């Protein structure tokens, strides 16, 4: 696992189910109980049917690279980690999630590539989802 800068995210009552699952190495997603849309970023209000109420489903943790960039000039703590790969990964459940591609040569990343989740822990408990090329 790479050691990209990783800070504890703000955990609110609204997002606690998501972050609690990450501490156990599980990727869960909110699904609207009215229209069944899988919601991203995690929240309890459905931006499709505009109602409140979600159930948390287990995601596969698999997806494909929708877009990516190799950043050579990061800001703040990322400056020392450059170059690194920032990406949107389209989860198999639908949402496109901002993340990093890790544990591989940046030059080998491509759009359409299959990737799976890797967890970056924080001292506070929650872990941050990053992705690596699927085995």
């Amino acid at each position, binding site marked *: 696992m790479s050691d990209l800068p990783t800070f504890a*995210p703000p955990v609110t009552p609204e997002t606690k189910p998501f972050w609690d699952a990450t501490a156990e190495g599980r990727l869960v997603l909110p699904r609207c109980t009215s229209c069944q849309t899988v919601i*991203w970023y995690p929240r309890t209000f459905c931006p*499709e049917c505009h109602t409140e109420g979600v159930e948390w489903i287990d995601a596969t943790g698999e997806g494909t690279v929708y877009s990516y960039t190799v*950043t050579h000039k990061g800001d703040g703590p990322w400056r020392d980690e450059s170059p690194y790969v920032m990406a*949107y990964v389209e989860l198999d459940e639908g949402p496109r*999630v901002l993340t990093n591609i890790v544990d591989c040569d940046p030059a080998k990343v491509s759009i359409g590539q299959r990737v799976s989740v890797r967890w*970056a822990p924080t001292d506070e408990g929650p872990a941050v989802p990053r992705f690596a090329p699927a085995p």
Partner: protein
Amino acid sequence: MTICGKASIAGAYEHPLRVIPDRTVAQVHADVAVGALADAGLSMDDVDGYFCAGDAPGFGGFSMAEYLGLQLRHIDTTETGGSSYLCHVGHAAAAIAAGKCSVALVTLAGLPRSDPASMMAGARAMFAGAPEAGFEMNHGMTIHGGYALAARRHMYEFGTTSEQLAEIKVAASHHAQFNPDAFLPKAVSIEEVIESPLVSDPLHRLDCCVVTDGGGAVVVVSPEIARDLERRTVKVLGHGEAPKHTNNGRIDLTHTGAVWSGPRAFEEAGVTPGDIDYASIYDSFTITVLETIEDLGFCEKGKGGAFVADQGLRAPDGRLPFNTDGGGLCNNHPANRGGMTKIIEAVRQLRGEAHGEVQVPDCQLALAHGTGGSLANRMGSATLILGQEDA
């Protein structure tokens, strides 16, 4: 109701400096306010509407209204990043048409080169408590990285090349060499752009706009006031604006909000893209211009690379002369917000006051477009259609 022809830009002023080490942000707001009012032939006492955005120091628009000594009956602090000022002109025209004010002042200023700390308060406020923050804070997002994500996807879907993006910078630099105030006044080649260091692949250093201190202001007035001014004015004919966000995690990185703001502005003005003589296109990065040209309908989606490749953006003879001041890519991007200077150069073109080498002959109809925020997540697009006084 439409705003078409119901308000005019009577004054426009761009601060001549690009590095301002010895003045505060409030002082530069005042400098450009005075400049634009002098250009219009009006005074601070004539102003009854004031518009500013997140670059204005203090509490909304109140701190600057107090600093300048304005007595107002209308205030609007719409904040859509770099596109705010195009929204402001549209909102000012609507307010004037509705009788809410008759002389509207719009100001922008910032000192990102000389006083970077002055830029941080706004940035912190934008992130603090944002519901998306926890899901975006740990991935090394940068401004250029976000636009690079869009560029990479556009290349993947449409075959757009780095050379095509580079031509946008080359055209801007061709124009900037005639602007004595431009931050980067030297013409560059496609090779120089693609051989400059990668900042976020596929964007190079020269695919990025400049970082400059400075500011600008415009004065929007009612037709009755415009009629009595000696200076040539510019008619506001159409306005459209559109926020775009990640759409429940289903973001499409290959277009901007211009797909919505553009048609609204063209419809209000009663014109089409083919009628436009000159365009100021927001150019935070080369990819911003490419996607916007497609989204506004100057060419088909995905064909922007071919559209720009044969010098189509170069003034005065290209099919769409753009950013004849050198744009944000070469001339000026004050406060990291390029919307105001887009309006100002469109006003120069419609008054026939652009530099002789880049003035579009008989420029009747101009478009100015702003892109605030990031193509990578949430952004505000705003489009203005402006016409010559006699149009």
